[in-house]
């Protein structure tokens, strides 16, 4: 079961907190949608700290980060 975290329009630390909740559930892959580069970098950095692999895709209006373990 994959999870989707829609953090578009939320400012940090919200995207990171929502991602953390999803990571804690332990169901991978997790797709995280964020709008700003700040959120993208924060989520990427923290997810890597939690031991996830992160792939980033630029969707134009938003970024999609795919977290796997």
């Amino acid at each position: 079961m994959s999870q989707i975290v829609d953090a578009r329009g939320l400012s940090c630390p919200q995207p990171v907190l929502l991602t953390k909740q999803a990571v804690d559930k332990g169901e991978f892959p997790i797709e995280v949608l964020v709008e700003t580069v700040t959120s993208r970098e924060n989520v990427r950095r923290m997810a890597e700290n939690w031991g996830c692999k992160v792939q980033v895709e630029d969707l134009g209006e938003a970024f999609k980060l795919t977290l796997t373990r």
Partner: protein
Amino acid sequence: MRQKLTLFFASRWGIILVGAVIGTLASLLQKFDNPPNMGICVACFERDIAGALGLHRAAVVQYIRPEIIGFVLGSLIAAFLFQEFKARAGSAPIVRFLLGVFAMIGALAFLGCPWRALLRLAGGDLNAILGLVGLAVGIAVGVQFLKAGFNLGRSHKTYSSVGWILPGIMIGLLLLLIFRVQFSENGAIFFSAKGPGSMHAPMLISLAAGLIIGFFAQRTRFCTMGALRDVILMRDTHLLSGVGALFVVALIMNMILGQTKLGFEVQPVAHSSHLWNFLGMSLAGMAFALAGGCPGRQLFLAGEGDGDSAIFVIGMIVGAGLSHNFSLAGSPDKMVDGVLQVGGITTAGMVAVLLGLMVCITIGFTMREKFNQEGKR
């Protein structure tokens, strides 16, 4: 190339470099005649701008500070060069305005923003310890609200012109400064003849320093509130390493430049009323945490198109007006005929700080998603 630079700025060395740049420039700006231990202070400088516009009439703190203009425009330039300018708005603007007002009231009770708290300590002013502890406590309370589901809601993509409003205002302020416009005899624009407002580095140096800091801070997301918040919330020390670099470099620079004076009493533009230094910054810290950024960060965000941060900035400027008009701001320690007169805040100032704490706590409790869901049931 652009990709490589982005990666470097996002790295730990990137944030450390930027902290060091801010620490160096702040000490140098003081050397070039900015007020003592106030090479840079976002709260104080916005307060000076409020004074220049006549939003308050405290004659000693009136000047259009080019550093603030530079922060916003430097961030704007960086955002455009790296294609990160995104106009967005609509996340509880009135709440952000109110948080800005109370953040300023708290910061002016202490006499400084988090940057100045660090610079004061780097100049030997030990009162700053009370302020920094207060800041950490305020942020820690804010973090508890974040953990309990507090958030101000989503912002939305909007017209580019919305993102241009605060940069536009800054360009207007720059023109008013350059041409020293006076709208009537004895009227605004006001420029202090004495006091901290009269002490400033040459305009172009201030503006250049502001632009450099704005540019780098936009690239690295430098934020003092975020530094403490991320440590408390997630044990993440990324931003903290930048803040640490700011302090260490400013400390060394101040020693080299002979700008250090150790102690509590009669420190420049500071008071040793410990409780209110602590509580003032607790209020400011909580307001920054709830609004998602320290005063500097709000300027950089506004520069990259964030209309909600722009509202927070306007709130701070209005807050400075209220703070001085209602005599809520701290007054510095004084030596009168060799006798120490401890400064501090008035009874009205104390009431305002306590009111601000209550308002922030109410905002923190009532704007939680869980609270809303329970409310619906």
